[in-house]
């Protein structure tokens, strides 16, 4: 047997107060897709950053090709053949694809030669990309292609991908997997980080599972059940969210011909959306990011005013009503972006409780704030949703993403909404917390509230929705019962692959 491409042995990295990695050892073989699994905070990011030269380990060492490998900065890692596609893209909206790629290179060739290279590489790997297009006009899937092509131009031996499918439609995921298989066949190794266990079972050859910074298991994902992997990640048995009946009542929310211009540059205009939502019902809205999710949520929350008759709440026209008036009625909303939208980062949790709970929890009287009640409410949210924080006086910024998400979703749920709109309720939240949030949402529906869950996580939507609809380019497809909906049908509803036809098998 040949030596593995990359050997990690005893990698340890501690930050003040937390050990991010503790004696992590595993090998990545040549030409394998190796999954790195773990909850948020399990130490995946730190480990990957160590390999990519962004973080130096306190102890332990790495060997690449059997030779010592200790990159002190990303360009050293890149020079050794390690490339990385980040979860959050570092692209400039106003520049072309080729210009963006050139920005990431140490010595970029002339722009027209680079454009030619981009065309060649992207076609060779089945990720067609026009180097002259402006990045601001690209879909999320296409932006990811830019990042991947940027890496492929360096002819890497190890490609690290952090949550690559979170922004893709099922069809786009298939295209990406074809590309990964092609790379694997050429002997490139891939370190694949994801929460989505079914994907890992499809594409990965081996898996390493991290928990609390330690390797707690290794497995062959092709032969291991997703549930087993999840339980190894969490270190506990998981319960699947469930609801008893699924009875529905009166129509509480009605959208008719909802349309609105894009509120900002590179936003999406909403076009002619019709919808009826009944009490006790969960409507899942899927779609690739940037297809009008934010705009729909803002139109429903009242942050974006529309014509009065476009939105009806219990028969009443509310399109022009503001945020506070809608909260009074019982129409609540939890936006996708936690920091700076759902919560003010520099304010305490008590103050963030006041942000939305004033009208329904009676936290304001005659214009004066009732701090005691606000603190009490924040404490109840913290307790019921197991928000890990020293107390309600902590600044929202100091909470981890998952904990803050529990707080902002919990804050709305505990106000007993009649209609709750949530956008990406479990984004970046670990498996156990995600299960808590989903169960709380289902309990809320069971108690008679109507829910709209906007998410890019199709598994999540299928798990909790009664009906499913897809947003595509600002229009909403007709909704269909979620039960028995196949992945291909969902893909079609999401608008196919957004004109990004796969090039595999064509040439």
């Amino acid at each position, binding site marked *: 047997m040949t030596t593995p491409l990359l050997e990690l042995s005893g990698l340890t990295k501690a930050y003040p107060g937390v050990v991010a990695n503790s004696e992590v050892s595993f090998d990545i073989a040549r030409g394998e897709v190796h999954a790195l699994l773990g909850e948020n905070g399990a130490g995946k990011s730190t480990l990957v950053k160590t390999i990519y030269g*962004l*973080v*130096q380990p306190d102890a332990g060492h790495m060997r690449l090709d059997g030779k010592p490998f200790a990159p002190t*900065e990303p360009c050293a890692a890149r020079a050794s053949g390690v490339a990385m596609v980040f979860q959050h893209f570092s692209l400039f909206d106003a520049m072309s694809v080729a210009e963006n790629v050139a920005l990431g290179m140490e010595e970029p060739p002339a722009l027209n030669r680079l454009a030619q290279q981009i065309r060649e590489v992207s076609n060779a790997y089945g990720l067609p990309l026009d180097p002259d297009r402006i990045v601001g006009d690209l879909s999320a899937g296409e932006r990811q292609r830019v990042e991947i092509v940027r890496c492929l131009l360096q002819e890497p031996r190890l490609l690290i991908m952090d949550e690559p499918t979170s922004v893709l439609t099922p069809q786009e995921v298939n295209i990406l997997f074809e590309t990964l298989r092609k790379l694997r066949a050429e002997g490139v190794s891939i370190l694949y980080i994801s929460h989505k266990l079914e994907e890992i079972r499809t594409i990965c050859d081996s898996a390493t599972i991290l928990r609390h910074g330690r390797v707690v298991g290794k497995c062959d994902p092709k032969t291991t059940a997703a549930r087993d992997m999840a339980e190894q990640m969490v270190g506990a048995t998981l319960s699947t969210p469930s609801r008893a009946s699924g009875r529905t009542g009166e129509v509480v929310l009605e959208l008719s011909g909802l349309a609105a211009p894009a509120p900002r540059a590179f936003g999406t205009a909403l076009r002619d959306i019709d919808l009826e939502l009944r009490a006790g019902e969960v409507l899942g809205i899927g779609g690739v990011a940037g297809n009008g999710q934010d705009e729909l949520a803002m139109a429903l*929350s009242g*942050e974006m005013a529309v014509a009065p008759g476009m939105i009806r709440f219990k028969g009443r026209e509310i399109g022009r009503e*503001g*945020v*506070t008036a809608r*909260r009074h009625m019982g129409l609540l*909303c939890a*936006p996708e*972006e936690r920091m*700076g*939208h*759902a*919560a*003010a*980062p*520099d*304010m305490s949790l008590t*103050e963030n409780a*006041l*942000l*939305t709970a*004033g*009208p329904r929890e009676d936290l*304001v009287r005659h*214009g*004066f*704030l009732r*701090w005691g009640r606000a603190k009490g409410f924040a404490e109840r949210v913290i307790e019921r949703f197991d928000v890990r924080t020293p107390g309600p006086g902590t*600044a929202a*910024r*100091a909470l981890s993403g998952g904990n803050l998400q529990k707080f902002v979703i919990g804050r709305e749920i505990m106000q007993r909404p009649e209609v709750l709109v949530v956008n990406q309720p479990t984004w970046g939240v670990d498996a156990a917390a995600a299960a808590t949030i989903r169960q709380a949402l289902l309990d809320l529906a069971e108690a008679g509230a109507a829910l709209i869950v906007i998410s890019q996580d199709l598994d999540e939507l299928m798990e909790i929705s009664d009906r499913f609809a897809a947003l595509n380019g600002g229009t909403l497809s007709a909704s269909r019962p979620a039960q028995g909906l196949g992945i291909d049908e969902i893909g079609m509803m999401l608008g196919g692959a957004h004109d990004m036809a796969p090039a595999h098998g064509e040439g």
Partner: protein
Amino acid sequence: MIRLERRPEPSRAWTIATPFVAVALTMLAGGLMFAVLGKDPVEAIRTIFWDPLFGDFASYSRPQLLVKAGPLILIAIGLSLGFRAGIWNIGAEGQYILGAIFAAATGLAFYPAESWLVFPAMILAGALGGILWAMIPALLKVRFGTNEVLVSLMLVYVAEALLASMALGLLRNPEGMGFPGSRNLAQYPSAANLDLIPGTGLHWGVALALIAVIVGQVVMTRHQLGFRVRLAGQSPRAAVFGGVNPGWLIVVCMGISGGLAGLAGMFEVAGPAGRLGIDFNVGYGFTAIIVAFLGRLNPIGILLAGLLMALTYIGGELAQLQMNLPLAAIQMFQGMLLFFLLAVDVLTAFRFRMGRRVVA
């Protein structure tokens, strides 16, 4: 290597310590400047900070402290509200002038009738003048998205021209033998804003400034308006989600700051200044911006900062008289205060770290 690192949470200790460190550094650098100018730095600093309160002429300068601090505090309290919300009213000087013009015009319209109604009417007119002048940048911003910094600042110069025109024309003293300037309101009993306790400098405007400090503190800590102001300043998107109407907030904050600046102008023209002359405004509206920041946009802080700033004004004048220090040096000294404040302010959100850079 020394580098700056963002603190996980803003430092509370530094928030409080910053003004004191800034004052100390100003004394050091200012002392150095005075020494370079060939003056005894210790004596200069003493003349500025000590003599106005406890020196030989303190009985004259002590009341001046309140007379000067009053308008600074009143204006700064109003400005701080907007500044916290990210609404930058730089034109308080113009609103101050308009408040004085409106108030003087109202008072003079009644002259020489004696009635207790004249003074309250002038107060209302002063506030109205400031509010109306502030509504120009406010409404332009709400309606057309113009920059309130530029519009409010440029309106100061319009206000100064208007002041000159009034002092030379409509409001000129008919018995003034052609000299510019209005009648002396301080000598018109129904309109005069006199000391509440004679000889202390404590006139109605100073009393109102103290009330504004208390009300400001209550609004910022206990009232929804203060919460909305802070929210809008920290995270505008979260503020909209929390139910704040940004346009409404601009109008309210500009209105309050304009109104208080107008009131400051009213109390000045009816009291310490007495007359509406060409050179009626002396920069309170601009200095109040420094006071607002020196006081950390906090009402209690503004109270202290206003007194300190008034002290450097009076002390500065004293130093000019007694030590022949040039006016420019005094102004530089006051400028240093803001400079050091902003420089030291970095430490509330950042901290120094020695050693090699680590990328996280």
